[in-house]
């Protein structure tokens, strides 16, 4: 049979020499149609994900402010050895470019950037500009030093030098509570300032905790939904989906009303005599868990439900017929088959939870804020996009790493049903 096939093929191609080309043409048309179908999505993905994410990654190392606004100064400063004061050439170019930076918003950009090096830099630039003459009869180094004594300090110029290269690792380091020491080596920042390592750990802990609670609560509920008769499960499903019809802010506010000291939960417990003084249920970790689990629970239930709906009850019957206690049958036969749903649900909830911002901001305390809170702070309040991007970058990396580990685990155990 095989030999017959092998023999017949050259025979055909001899008869129809253009066959391969014809096949290619036919395939090409089919491919083009397929590409045309996915093109809108692909374009959307590029615009909505690839570009912004690349932009974020770039901004976390972007250091182009000084280089763009003061190109000559930046160039000369990178050649400067940093020991003595820079040469007159640097002073003169700097004075020129500082004056020019007033137009086109350049001053604002370098001011913001240099303030990260030293919080007094903006004031220094303002004061300098106020009295900077257009021309000088003295040297520019004398002029600048007479305007402000800080221009005679090498530290001032070193700060400028650090801001001169096109890229920097300062944001990425700062997002891990690290910095470059005066000798250029990486060191931990002052203990009083350290916060982000803990914030990352906290973010993972809260997201993990929320995911676990969602799983523990969602699994039985999804099971119930999947096993109830359709009419009843449809009604229940409406209750599951109901939260989607209310805005996230309203739901979060509702939890505050319920959980606060004078709220329904505390007054009920006190009326029943179960507690003497109100429990602190909100503006701390408990409140964060309550509100986040409530919001994310449907995202656990839906994938679980869809997988459970597809599992025939016959497997559990088979297991009991083989001698397994119904509980054992459930645990050994049913649960493993739901693992693809569990996997989908947990990864969905975890990834959504890891980026939560407004809910912990409203129902959490200061030690319950997650990475996104700081991303929002740097983006909205201080316009420090470098820091926001660096925090975002690490959040992205952490998420991707976790996903890889998770993927590997799931695959290794071959838990996903074929």
């Amino acid at each position, binding site marked *: 049979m095989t030999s017959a096939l092998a023999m017949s093929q050259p025979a055909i191609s001899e008869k129809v020499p253009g066959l391969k080309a014809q096949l290619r043409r036919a395939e090409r048309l089919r491919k083009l149609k397929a590409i045309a179908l996915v093109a809108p999505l692909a374009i959307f993905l590029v615009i909505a994900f690839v570009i912004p994410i690349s932009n974020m990654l770039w901004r976390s190392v972007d250091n182009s402010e000084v280089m763009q606004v003061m190109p000559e100064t930046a160039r000369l400063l990178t050649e400067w050895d940093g020991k003595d004061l820079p040469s007159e050439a640097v002073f003169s170019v700097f004075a020129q470019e500082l004056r020019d930076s007033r*137009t086109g*918003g350049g001053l604002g950009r370098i*001011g913001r950037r240099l303030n990260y090096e030293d919080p007094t830099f903006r004031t220094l630039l303002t004061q300098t500009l106020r009295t900077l003459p257009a021309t000088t009869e003295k040297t520019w180094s004398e002029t600048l030093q007479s305007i402000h004594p800080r221009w005679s300090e090498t530290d001032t110029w070193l700060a400028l030098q650090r801001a001169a290269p096109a890229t920097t690792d300062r944001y990425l380091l700062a997002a891990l509570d690290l910095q470059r020491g005066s000798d250029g080596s990486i060191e931990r920042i002052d203990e*009083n300032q350290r*916060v982000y390592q803990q914030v990352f750990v906290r973010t993972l802990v809260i997201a993990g905790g929320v995911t676990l609670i969602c799983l523990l609560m969602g699994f039985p509920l999804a099971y119930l939904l999947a096993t109830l008769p359709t009419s009843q499960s449809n009604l229940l499903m409406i209750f599951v989906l109901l939260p989607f019809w209310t805005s996230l802010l309203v739901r979060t506010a509702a939890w505050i009303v319920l959980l606060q000291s004078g709220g329904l939960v505390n007054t009920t417990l006190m009326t029943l005599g179960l507690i003497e003084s109100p429990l602190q249920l909100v*503006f701390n970790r408990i409140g964060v868990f309550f509100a986040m689990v409530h919001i994310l629970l449907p995202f656990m239930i839906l994938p679980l439900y869809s997988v459970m709906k597809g599992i025939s009850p016959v497997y559990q019957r088979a297991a009991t017929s083989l001698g397994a206690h119904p509980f054992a049958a459930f645990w050994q036969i049913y649960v493993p088959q739901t693992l693809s749903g569990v996997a989908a649900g947990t990864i969905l909830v975890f990834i959504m939870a890891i980026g939560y911002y407004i809910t912990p901001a409203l129902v959490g*305390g200061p*030690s319950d*804020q997650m990475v996104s809170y700081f991303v929002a702070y740097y983006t909205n309040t201080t316009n420090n996009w470098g*820091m926001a991007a660096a925090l975002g970058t690490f959040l992205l990396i952490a998420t991707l790493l976790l996903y890889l580990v998770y993927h590997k685990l799931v695959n290794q155990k071959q838990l996903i049903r074929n």
Partner: protein
Amino acid sequence: MNMKNTLLNTRKTALVTGLAIATASLALSAQAMTVISFGGSSGDAMQKAYYAPFVEKTGKTLTPGDYNGEFARIRAMVETGNVSWDVVEVESPELVRGCFEGLFQPIDWAKLGIEDQLIPEAVTECGVGSFVWSTVLAYDADRLEGTPLSWADFWDLETFPGKRGLRRGAKYTLEFALMADGVSSSDVYDVLATEEGVARAFAKLDEIKEHIQWWEAGAQPPQWLVAGDVVMSSSYNGRIAAAQEEGRNLAITWNESLYDLDYWTIIEGSTQVEDAYEFIRFASQADTQAVYSSNIPYGPVNPAAIGALSEAQAKRMPTHADNLIGAIAVNTDFWVDFGEELEQRFNSWATR
């Protein structure tokens, strides 16, 4: 002001933004001055107190609009040279940044000629104060036994047991802590500018750390006070006044309060500079400011306006002479420069 106004704003933003864009393009051809504020109930009060009377009195056209404090929009306008706004209300940090970046025209105070009528903080390089709002110590007079007179009393857990509300963040919190620790209000920013001062503030916060319930939104403190969640809280005075109007017996301790201003600025590249000056001058008068403040509990920058208000209204104003005793203005320059560092340190402290 962004934070305290956001909830007021959102209702009308979409509508008025659309209006602003439409009218802004119209304004260019008609050479009408465009005045942009934060809208909301403050914008309504401005309409009554400033916009309508200004048009009536001068016969000039004025196109009002509002925005949500999007600084990037102003920056884009100036950088592209397509300036359709003339007078814009900004908060103090944006005033400092925008002035530094050259987005606002320097104010010619001699030409304006009202420098001596205003409180000192209203007079800046690039902005003229429009109103004053304050972060104060507030409490529920029906619930609290005794009267807290200072931040030292706020820190006094024995006399006033219970939870306290403070804004989640370094700004205001560190100033109050230093005042509680005995730093006189006039020295607060000098002390806070030193490493020792910062350490001192955090050490003071440590004393009541367990008893603080941190608020995020301006609406929370009056709500918590009414619900009895906290016995005292720092709060924006406007929020307390609103609760008072709803019949809540919330009280304010004005001593050692921190006040801040919103400012009128003239955008760099505006073609309506003369009208802008006239408008700002008009809006800074005692009588117009009195109308504004009688509509919304933000203090006039012109102290003479206080006299035109009713006794009850006047007493709610951050700029009432009695209320200014012991109060200090927020040092915006300080927070623009050191804000990030101190916020990071605050968050580091909060988790310890």
